[in-house]
């Protein structure tokens, strides 16, 4: 017994010594949104650098954040949205980026970098990856059948006017399940600031939602892609790129479903997803190489082509397919750009009030 114990001890000590010496810099753990990269990006990165990538995905900022805040999540590269980034930086989740190792930094769009300083002062911790809007995805034929030719498909009236959405109930309406990304739309529609923290105004937004609530089929942040593509629902308030994905899925399936996307004329929320390195990353060198790779114009342009989201890389725009570059639903016109609003980082109290409102809206209680 004593001998076994000694062997065990020796074995584990030896193992520890070895593993400390053998830091694994040939493997990189990347945690990204689902369907948010081109098919061959990872393969090309591995071919260029010899670093093997373990790629994992999530479908909400909350899931990513919970893992990061628990500590030792085991990821080297993560892709938080800017509204979450600010608090995570405050909590000490990330390590500053060593810009000397990011020669492709120069390709970034300076205007966008300035916008991002709201969440990341001095652009110390993150680079912009892709961005997009939250607008109206719809099944052209079914909406026409329900509301006629003059259906307000380019306005929030479509879903916030009870008489309109009631007619869509039969074919199905979905909203993103995210209070902080959807309640601002209601606030904005009511004529308040989209980042209002006034409890009275929040209550009014809640009341607006409760009025249309009976006509909403479900709240979910990813399953509307499939449902819109195969005709299970006819209107989805969702992420622009996801709706374009539903469109191409319907085209591939040749099921006769015609999916379109509009940014509402009143204005819509825009989210910016950023790339950052957690403080406890095991392979920060590899992570920097990966980020520098993503900053290459041809690499990020291919990703934009594949996922239909615009990127934050000024040098890449001309490399993006013309069909995508000129689609106002993906690359909004300058006039529409002015109508877009970003999602701010909210104090815990407001966040809780929003979640509570959301529960009230969803359950009708």
């Amino acid at each position, binding site marked *: *017994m*004593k001998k*076994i*114990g000694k*062997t*065990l*001890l020796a*074995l*584990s000590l*030896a*193992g*520890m010594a*070895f*593993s400390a010496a*053998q830091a*694994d810099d*040939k493997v990189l753990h990347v945690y990204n949104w689902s369907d948010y990269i081109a098919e061959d990006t990872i393969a090309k990165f591995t071919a260029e650098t010899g670093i093997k990538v373990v790629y994992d995905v999530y479908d*909400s900022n*909350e*899931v990513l*954040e*919970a893992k*990061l*805040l*628990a*500590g030792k999540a085991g990821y080297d590269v993560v892709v938080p949205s800017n509204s979450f980034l600010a*608090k995570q930086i*405050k*909590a*000490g*989740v990330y390590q500053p980026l060593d810009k000397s190792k990011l020669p492709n930094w120069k390709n970034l769009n300076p205007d966008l970098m300035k916008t991002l300083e709201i969440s990341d002062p001095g652009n110390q911790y993150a680079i912009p990856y892709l961005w997009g809007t939250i607008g109206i995805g719809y099944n052209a034929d079914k909406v026409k059948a329900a509301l006629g030719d003059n259906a307000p498909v380019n306005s929030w009236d479509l879903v916030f006017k009870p008489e309109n959405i009631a007619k869509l109930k*039969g074919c*199905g309406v979905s909203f993103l399940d995210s*209070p902080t990304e959807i309640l601002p739309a209601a606030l904005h529609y009511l004529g308040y600031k989209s980042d209002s923290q006034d409890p009275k105004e929040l209550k009014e937004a809640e009341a607006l939602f409760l009025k249309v*609530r009976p006509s*909403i*089929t*479900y*709240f979910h942040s990813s399953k509307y892609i499939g449902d819109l593509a*195969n*005709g*299970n629902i006819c209107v989805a308030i969702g992420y622009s790129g996801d709706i374009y994905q539903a469109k191409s899925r319907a085209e591939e399936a040749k099921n006769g479903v015609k999916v379109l996307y509009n940014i509402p004329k009143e204005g819509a929320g825009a989210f910016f997803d950023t790339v950052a390195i957690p403080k406890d990353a095991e392979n920060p060198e590899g992570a920097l190489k990966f980020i520098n790779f993503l900053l290459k114009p041809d690499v990020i342009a291919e990703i934009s082509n594949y996922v239909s989201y615009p990127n934050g890389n000024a040098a890449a725009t001309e490399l993006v397919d013309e069909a995508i570059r000129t689609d106002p639903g993906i690359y909004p016109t300058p006039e529409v750009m002015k109508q877009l609003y970003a999602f701010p980082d909210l104090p*815990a109290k407001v*966040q*809780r009030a929003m*979640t*509570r409102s*959301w*529960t*009230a*809206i*969803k*359950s*009708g*209680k």
Partner: protein
Amino acid sequence: MSKLTNPLNDRGIVVVAAALVIIGAVTLLNLIGPAGTFWQALGLSINQICTLLVVLATVAAVYVGVALLFSRFSHLNPGRAAVVSGPFLWLFLFFLLPFFIVLKISFAEADVAIPPYTEIYSYAEQKLEIILNLGNYLFLTEDELYLAAYLGSLKMAAISTIVCLLIGYPMAYAMARAKKESQTTLLLLIMMPTWTAILIRVYAWMGILSNNGLLNGFLLDIGLIDTPLQILNTNLAVYIGVVYSYLPFMILPLFANLVKHDNSLLEAASDLGSSNLNNFWKITVPLSKNGIIAGSMLVFIPVVGEFVIPELLGGPETLMIGKVLWQEFFNNRDWPVASALAVVMLAILIVPIILFNRNQAKELEGKA
């Protein structure tokens, strides 16, 4: 030394030694060989394996210690003490320890940090300070949402349990009455679906129940309905999913109980002029009481905390505690309130758990 080796017979030592030699050899190969593919295939790094070994060694040491202490106090020989103290160690490691961690967080305050809550004790200048924040528990009473969610979960669990019992009892009864040869097959048929991952089975229900799904397609085809029935994303879909998923947990204990019944009791009752229905109510049902309680608890307790099925099949009106807990944890980043919710849920579940344990104890006594 001799005392320690007592619980292990010669064969045991050989097995343990062989296992250690294999683990050691593979670890060494892993270190020498080119990027040890075996462990990597398992998703373990060398560091993790070593940590695992150290943890195992510690657990083994604690186990031996507990067993020795137990044998000193109970006058059992170390071998028996080791066997008896096994379950206690298991409970301590996998129930009590995690519970205390959750309990600790429930007394903390939310914070912007890693981890996102404050430490409940601090030690500085020879002063140990313990701060228990009861605010999280008081907060639960301030908003009727939490009560509504607990009640929603309890209602969901209660109705599902009753439906499982109504469906499961006849099935278990039929199985118990079937020929001995076919019983194994029937048991296998009940258990086989549970060999598939629950997520996949619930996803299959999404395909069946959706507006364009199998069920609506079939009903439309035969002309019974002309607009699709909205079943998916409603409470009805959750009930269907829960009853389907938990039915085996109802049937198995019922079957185990019913199969032991002595048929001569029924024959005697019939001889004395009792009807079959009367036999069933007066003899079979009372005798199967323990099976009914065991099956009901095995369904009720996990359904109260169920998250996956309502999340996938339920609609927005499905208000259950699992979902509210998720919101506190993920949307509000408020781990302490989420922990308080979990502790209260456990407190609510303790009554049925105690009931279940008592029933199990009775069952064992009955056997002895």
